[in-house]
Structures are given as structure tokens and as C-alpha cells.
């Protein structure tokens, strides 16, 4: 089956994203394919490269990247949600005259159209929120 994931909460206040990561690993292990992982709401913070992870905690950004490298996952971050929360790439930094960009390489900013595309092209879209 073709799956897409919609992630809505940030790791700093919810278990949901950790669950999403484990769910993704299970899907891949079972031979399913993943069309897209869409980061929306506070989950956009996952794509920031300015976070510091405490030594005894999990670095989910690194784990998504490792999984993405291994399985060519499409990690898309909602541009409207990201810009609002201070997660920006080079071109958004220029457009809004900000001093720097912080989007982790391996994630891309795009619109909600990518979520619509995911809803159309996958068999199941699973939301991880709250």
C-alpha cells in the first residue's frame, strides 16, 4: 500500500512524532511505500537546524534524515506554517529580509498543495497529532 503521513505536533511537547517515526520504520519493514511525509503545525520545528538535542534525548531530525537517505523519503514542510514559526530556507530569508536561514538540508518547504497531492495519490493518509 502507498502511505503518506501528516505530522502536526512537535517533539518538544508530544510523543506523536516519535510514534510517526516508528510507524514509518514499520511500514518500510513490511514493504509498503511512502509517498510523502508532510510536516504541518508545530512539527515544522523538526526541520530547523538550530535545535540542540540533549545528550540523553532522541534527535528526531537526524533520525528522519537517516531514514530519508536510506529510503528516499520526501520530507516536505508546510511553507506557511514554517515561515510563521521561524523555520525558513535561503529564498524565504531573502524574501522576508531575515538574517539567516535554518531549514535543515534534506527537508523542503512547499505548500499545502503537496498535502492535497498526497491525499490523492496514496491509499492511506495517517495523521499524527496531539
Amino acid at each position, binding site marked *: 500500500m502507498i502511505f503518506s503521513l501528516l505530522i*502536526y505536533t512537535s517533539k518538544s511537547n508530544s510523543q506523536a512524532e516519535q510514534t510517526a517515526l516508528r510507524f514509518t520504520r514499520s511500514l518500510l519493514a513490511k514493504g509498503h511505500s511512502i509517498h510523502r511525509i508532510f510536516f504541518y503545525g508545530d512539527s515544522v520545528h523538526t526541520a530547523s537546524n538550530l535545535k540542540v538535542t540533549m545528550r540523553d534525548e532522541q534527535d528526531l531530525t537526524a533520525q528522519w534524515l537517516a531514514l530519508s537517505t536510506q529510503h528516499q523519503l520526501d520530507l516536505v514542510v508546510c511553507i506557511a*506554517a514554517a515561515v510563521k514559526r521561524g523555520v525558513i530556507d535561503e529564498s524565504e530569508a531573502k524574501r522576508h529580509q531575515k538574517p539567516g536561514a535554518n531549514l535543515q538540508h534534506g527537508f523542503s518547504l512547499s505548500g499545502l498543495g503537496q498535502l492535497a497531492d498526497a491525499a490523492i495519490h496514496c491509499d492511506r*493518509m495517517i495523521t499524527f497529532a496531539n
Partner: protein
Amino acid sequence: MPTNNDQSVLLIISNPPFYSASNRETLDIGLAFSAFDIPVSILFIDDGILQIKSDLNSEQLAQKNLINTFKALEMYDIQDCYVINKDLERFNLSTNALAIKCKTLDKDAIAQFIQAFKTVINL
């Protein structure tokens, strides 16, 4: 109810107004999906029904009132909005007190209703 089971999407709004960004961001999903000709329905459930009360006043909170955007749903061809009878009773509301036109569902029919959609999003 969805006519095209292959693409139908149900958005569930269950948080009260001014609680978090979730209602606003759910609404944005609806508008974007509609632009892609995906048939969108919205279910207001639990405290979510308060989001569409026509007499909401957000001025004192210095927050944006979403009600005008909700009222614009019809222009985006999103006409299938639903509330649940037990929620109307709980808040002593009638559908006349709501800013948008909603159909009423019986609480016992909700599971079957939700099951008919291809995609369900509940933020």
C-alpha cells in the same frame, strides 16, 4: 455524505475557538484541497462546534476571528458541514445560532459517517 468515495476528505474540528492554531490550520487544509477539486466535508465535534457560533467576539483576546473565513467556505465549494445533535444539546444551541449552514448528525451515526470517507484529518 461523500459522493466520490475515491477522493473524499473529512476534516474534523474538535477544539474550541482561540485554543490553538489547529482550527485555523484545518481550515487552510480545506481551502487548499478544494482548490485541487478534492471534495471536502467538515465535521464540528465536541467543543469544535463553538468555533462556528455566530456571536463570537475575539477583540478582547486580540486574536483574529476566523468566522469570516468559515463563512467563505461556500465560495470554495465546501458546503458539506456537519454538527452532532448531542453537541447542540450540550451547549443549548440550535443550528440557527451557527454562522454557517450545517447538517445535523445523530451521535450514533458518527462512526458510519466517518467511515465513508477516503481520508480523515483530525488535528
